[in-house]
């Protein structure tokens, strides 16, 4: 047992004094070099039980009196011993021993402590100084372990935040990729259709050109002309240009629209990430809201109607990609909380000191004990394996890093509202100069 051996290492074998030994003999014993390190000597009875400790100070008190040695030198040592010495079992742990000893120790330190075995038999002496040294090295050891644990923890936390980031990034990319499939679907089909329909038109122009050639050529026979007419009429029927024109226009318009949608999504993705612009620029938070909405659309469109009430906002300094991450996270949480089809209301406004964003859903809401823990890292209401429980704690940290606040209010059955407050730059400067 390591704790038992800890005290054993402090154990110093000291030959105990018999109870009937005289004070003068004890004084002589204390002066011998092998007892130099001790403040006191133990007195042990014939059964091996410690009776007390006699300290140097107790002896000094006698010898400093006039005729002290002559008067009391022959008295037994039990007369001046401390009959309630510190007795510690060897089986005690280092910490427990330290607690007992420091609890009973008196100033100035005049005695050592007696070490006994489990049956209470005397084994040796321990000094307070040795005990303190042992404690110090133990604490230093613990500190090293703790420092390593802290380092490991920080590393794994950074890894978790990174993997949460990757997971939400992956989700976002997959969402946008899927979102692209709808316009891609009809654009691709339309181009193919226009190609087919166009081919019929080219055949028609071809047939008509041949007919024109026939008519222009004086050598053309009646028969050839009739053939050319028939072919042109046939091509015309196949192409049906009067029907085609409206169709083609519609297909072209739809295709253009689809390509714009695709472009918008790609620009949105770029704006959302904003990797080219990190921190501290003049940002309109309304742009962040729109950007997050575009990216989240694949998750929101079949879950909720989104109403926007965006006020005029002053530009503020922030990291837009981080604010986007917060907004996307809140939006996705909002639609997850909705069973069936619901509503999400997003508002923004500003006062003299700050910009505010409110995001309210008509979802299932949360109980008070859930609300209380919602920003805690690793807290999640989702089943194991779905969600790290880091999303909102990261949101909290991002808003905090911006000098802002994030608040939540929720009621089961009615929904949840998040409010974010981001300070305006002049307000932040004032705070800094104050």
């Amino acid at each position, binding site marked *: 047992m390591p704790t038992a051996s800890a005290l054993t290492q402090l154990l110093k074998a000291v030959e105990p004094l018999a109870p009937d030994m005289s004070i003068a003999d004890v004084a002589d014993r204390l002066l011998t070099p092998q007892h130099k390190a001790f403040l006191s000597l133990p007195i042990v009875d014939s059964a091996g039980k410690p009776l007390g400790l006699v300290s140097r100070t107790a002896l000094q008190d006698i010898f400093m009196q006039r005729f002290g040695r002559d008067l009391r030198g022959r008295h037994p040592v039990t007369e001046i011993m401390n009959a309630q010495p510190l007795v510690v079992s060897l089986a005690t742990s280092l910490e427990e021993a330290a607690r007992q000893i420091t609890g009973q120790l008196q100033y100035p330190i005049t005695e050592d402590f007696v070490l006994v075995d489990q049956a209470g038999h005397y084994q040796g002496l321990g000094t307070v100084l040795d005990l303190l040294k042992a404690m110090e090295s133990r604490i230093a050891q613990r500190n090293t372990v703790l420092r390593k644990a802290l380092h490991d923890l920080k590393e794994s936390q950074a890894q978790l935040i990174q993997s949460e980031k990757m997971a939400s990034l992956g989700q976002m990319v997959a969402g946008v990729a*899927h*979102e692209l*499939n709808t316009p891609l*679907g009809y654009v691709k*089909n339309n181009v193919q259709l226009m190609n087919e329909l166009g081919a019929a038109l080219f055949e028609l122009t071809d047939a008509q050109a041949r007919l024109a050639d026939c008519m222009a050529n004086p050598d053309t026979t009646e028969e050839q002309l009739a053939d050319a007419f028939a072919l042109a009429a046939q091509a015309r029927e196949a192409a049906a240009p009067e029907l085609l024109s409206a*169709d083609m226009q519609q*297909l072209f318009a*739809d295709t253009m629209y*689809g390509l714009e949608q695709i472009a918008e999504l790609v620009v949105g993705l770029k704006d959302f990430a904003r990797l080219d612009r990190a921190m501290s620029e003049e940002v309109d938070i309304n742009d962040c809201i729109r950007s997050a909405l575009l990216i989240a659309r694949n998750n929101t469109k*079949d879950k909720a109607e989104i109403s926007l009430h965006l006020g005029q906002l002053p530009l503020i300094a922030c990291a837009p990609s981080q604010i986007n991450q917060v907004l996307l996270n809140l939006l996705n949480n909002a639609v997850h909380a909705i069973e069936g089809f619901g509503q999400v209301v997003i508002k923004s406004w500003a006062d003299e000191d700050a910009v505010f964003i409110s995001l309210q859903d008509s979802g299932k809401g949360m109980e008070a004990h859930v609300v209380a823990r919602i920003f805690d890292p690793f807290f999640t209401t989702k089943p194991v394996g779905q969600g790290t429980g880091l999303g909102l704690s990261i949101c909290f940290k991002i808003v905090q890093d911006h000098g802002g606040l994030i608040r939540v209010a929720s009621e089961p059955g009615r929904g949840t509202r998040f409010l974010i407050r981001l300070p305006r730059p002049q307000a932040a400067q004032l705070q800094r100069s104050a």
Partner: protein
Amino acid sequence: MSHLPRIMFVDDEERILRSLAVQFRRQYEVLTESDPHRALQRLEDQPVHILISDQRMPHMSGAELLAQARELAPNTLRILLTGYSDLDAAVDALNNGGIFRYLTKPWDPQEMAFTLRQAAEIALRQPAASTPVELASISAMSARLNVLLLDNDAETLALVDAFCQQGGHRLLRVRNIAEAMHILNSEPVELLVSDLKLAGDDTAPLLKTLAQAHPRLLSIVVTPFCDTQALLKLINEAQIFRYLPKPIRRGMFEKGLGAAVEQAIIWRAEPETAVMRLAQVPTNEPERERVGSLFGMLGRLRERLSA
């Protein structure tokens, strides 16, 4: 009235509807609807041969629409057309919507045309007015089925065994694909319960072969794997009847088995042409070859079944 097969497309994106309408209006009578609720109303009013729906729409998902359409018009072939690879939606559309195909956006125009042609052929074979087979008359017939189990999992075995004993069905067990082939060549099998892995082998090629060789055989897949792409292929190329995730949820499993037995009995009473199934040939080349060779080995099975 037009003699063309009638198709209804449902999508909340009008441009998809317009594009598909232009593509198919020559060969089909095309109806389009951007609102699933209105689509259901129209389906009640006029028979439709093929219903093709988007998955993600406000107020109602495609899977839900197809499940409701199945109740309203069981003889309409149902197809899901989606831009999202969403496993839950696919499972839902298969298990509750009984879909014929799972198609993805963007689609290949030729492939889509081919699929619709196949679907229309099957749909046109159906009797004009659907007369649901009376279950009472079925119970008079022998309801004893042969159930083949391709799963070494003790839990699946216990559940299937209990189900067979209760319903008086015969449970056939095999340890590997070779034994399965042997059984399939010597016994008629109506119902198949299979994991996607059996003794280390992939069972998907066998399921795909059986879908071609024996359209009436119903397969229920139970698997711990969740791969949307694999499921999509099982729907289109193996025409599986149910896809149930492991660990098995007992209620769902028993419901699936019950529905399969009911379907098998109904199909037994009807001519082969009434069976609304047709598997797509696997698109993957090595798999197509594997299916081809298994198909050859199942020759005798086919002969007996068509006899």
